[in-house]
């Protein structure tokens, strides 16, 4: 059979859909709706933290140590008598901020590196070997080492979590670029004398947007988890700033008698990360299946 029905135009490559970053069909996906709803709730809570019947997140009340959940302390108190509800609500700020800033920075830097590697053949081998090297180092260990050497702090943690994510994004972008650059329409543009920057912006970049949005959600989910793990291991956010990770870290010693200190922030992490992951999966389903597979292989 001829090309007539071999390549049916998929809904994603239709310009209208791509212009809106494939959102309209994807928004109808139940998983995406659920995920966005959860994220919205968590986000609003983080913004409105002082007004949500919270107290002082770092106020030590030695007399109220390790109290179980009650009408006074909804989620109980920790080993220093601090209110777990207050700390969890304020902790949402840190977790979301880290999730989004890591996703944004890893995607932007990875996009740049991927474009360079995919289009400048001379740099490709060198850049990709460096990416392979970073990927070979277990991400938590790399982050731990960086935090240990530079001291704890939100900025350090963001950098430490973002760096191991960059190679994954770069590889994804590179693979999209490599498959797009052999498309006849890109060759036609080269033949029409289009210069490299324009060629990338007009013909290559738009193809990377949809997979990058999906990959970005996965990076965001993974960053929230990694922050929790780093803080839990004592190589994360300093204890003065409550984050879901360090609330749980401080609950470790008393876990057998006061499991709520770990349980509630744990549930928050799980629900938020689940929401972000489900959004990612929904967007992925709404994408062209081939692109989707490429994203999946790298997660």
């Amino acid at each position, binding site marked *: 059979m*001829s*090309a007539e029905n*071999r390549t049916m135009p998929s809904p994603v*490559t*239709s*310009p209208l859909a791509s212009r809106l970053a494939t959102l309209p069909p994807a928004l109808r996906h139940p998983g995406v709706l659920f995920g966005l709803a959860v994220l919205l709730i968590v986000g609003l809570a983080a913004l409105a933290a002082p007004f949500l019947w919270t107290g002082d997140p770092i106020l030590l009340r030695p007399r109220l140590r390790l109290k179980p959940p009650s009408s006074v302390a909804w989620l109980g108190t920790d080993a220093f008598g601090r209110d777990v509800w207050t700390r969890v609500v304020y902790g949402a700020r840190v977790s979301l901020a880290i999730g989004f800033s890591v996703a944004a920075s890893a995607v932007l830097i990875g996009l740049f590196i991927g474009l360079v590697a995919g289009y400048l053949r001379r740099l490709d081998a060198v850049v990709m070997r460096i990416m392979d090297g970073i990927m070979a180092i277990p991400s938590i260990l790399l982050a731990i080492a960086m935090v240990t050497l530079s001291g704890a702090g939100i900025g350090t943690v963001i950098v430490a979590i973002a760096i191991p994510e960059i190679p994954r994004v770069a590889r994804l972008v590179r693979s999209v670029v490599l498959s797009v650059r052999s498309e006849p329409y890109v060759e036609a543009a*080269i033949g*029409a004398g289009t210069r490299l920057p324009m060629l990338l912006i007009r013909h290559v970049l738009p193809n990377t947007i949809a997979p990058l949005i999906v990959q970005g959600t996965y990076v965001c989910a993974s960053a929230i988890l990694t922050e929790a793990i780093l803080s839990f291991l004592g190589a994360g956010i300093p204890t003065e700033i409550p984050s879901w990770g360090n609330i749980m870290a401080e609950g470790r010693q008393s876990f057998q008698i006061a499991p709520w200190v770990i349980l509630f922030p744990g549930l928050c992490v799980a629900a938020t990360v689940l929401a972000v992951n489900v959004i990612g999966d929904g967007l992925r389903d709404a994408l062209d299946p081939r692109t989707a597979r490429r994203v999946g292989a790298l997660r």
Partner: protein
Amino acid sequence: MSQPVLSITGLTVPLPYGADRANAIEGLSLSVGANEIVCVVGESGSGKSVTASAVMGLLPPALKPSAGEILLQGEDILKVAPARLRALRGSRMAMVFQEPMTALNPVLKVGEQIAEMLEAHAGRSGREARRSRVLDLLGDVHLPDPPSLAKAYPHQLSGGQRQRVMIAMALANDPALIIADEPTTALDVTTQAQILKLLKELQARRNAGILFITHDFGVVSQIADRVVVMQRGRLVEEGRADEVLTRPRDPYTRMLIAAVPSAEPPPARPRQQAAAPILAVRDLTKTYGGRGLFGGGRAVTALDGVSLALQPGETLGIVGESGSGKSTLARCVARFVDPSAGHIRIGGDDIALLPPRELRPYRRRVQMVFQDPYRSLNPRRKVGQSIIEGPMNYGLSKEAALARAARLLDLVNLEKGALDRYPHEFSGGQRQRIAIARALAMEPDVLIADEAVSALDVSVQRQVLELLEDIRERLNLSILFITHDLRVAARLCDRLVVMLGGRIVEEGPTAALFANPRHAYTQALFAAAPKLRLAAS
């Protein structure tokens, strides 16, 4: 004549909601007798492949026949239990698919895959019996050295060899009906001729009925006893092959047959001899690979010292089979590929080895029309944006470029309104017209058409060829026309170059070459090309 092997009556297969029409097949009736080859002919979307899948019971789940019956030796395929259907598949009916490259399991040996057919259907038990039967079958389809071939993996075989393996597999249990779905479409023409001959020979020897799906009336005229013509899911004409081919009754059939390019070149165009060629290629060589990390690596020579010249206003055809280097040649001339050595002169300047930076002024002078109309336009950009991109790169104002684009759309017979629409709103043929307009917008010295009509249905192909004929006269275009199809080349080209293994083996004016091919390969190519054996068309 006894009871037919296959008899389809009133078959209707609805399409899922939202398709371009209600039914993939509508009220189709046809029959295949023992020892008969029935060709089902149609363009893409005619429902011919759905017919084949329906008979095998291999329709995708979204397609369910809603009416009619399919009788295989009197047994209704649509009503039998799944287990019975499985028992019939492979034993009483068997299928040969279009793509020999993907139809065989890449991780199993060829012999195992044929033996599996024997294992699956009782009657041939015993490892030894199966082994010798596999070897017999491989011999029957004229594959060399069956014992070692049985131990080969599919990727070690050529396309033609794989298709022979598929045929051997289909024959394994002596089926009464063989369904061949475009079995030669993916093959080179010389291989196609051999496979057609093989099918005909085996069918005669084994008394099987063959349902042969094809889009090519040339193939029909070589193999069919009877012909069924389908259009948009309906049967439009049916009859004995010679009758349908010589006296088609239905207008659609007539149009299809008329659209098949005849292998007779039209009379040569009158042209004055120009002083200097517009494009001159000398000793062009392209080698791939050979520079691995360890200096080793197999070097492949895709082009081996090719020389040719294109006169202003001339259409030069470059004909060859896959792997002949014809596309590499085109891509070197357009400098999408860097040649390893040689010269490419365009109006006196040698661009063969220019670095990319210095190449830019010359890009404008060579423009290409690509094979796949679905991938040659950026789906995210309006047609107008695609056409004016090039001229604006070379300094034309947006208004002037748009005016030029509108003129060109008119030239390629498209509405001006097309400028503001997206590629997906156009059919394959229309997209190819847009691609031609885009190339012409650069006012190139040389237009390269790389298999530009190969992916199109014959009726569309004919329209695009007519368009090219028309505009090259009007604009005095110089065209490098790359094709695997001698018939298309005969129609359009003033001169032909025949390529084999990266070299030019023969060249000359089209008519002279057709009248008297000298090189053995050219002769083989001509002999293999499917020709319509008609009195006059």
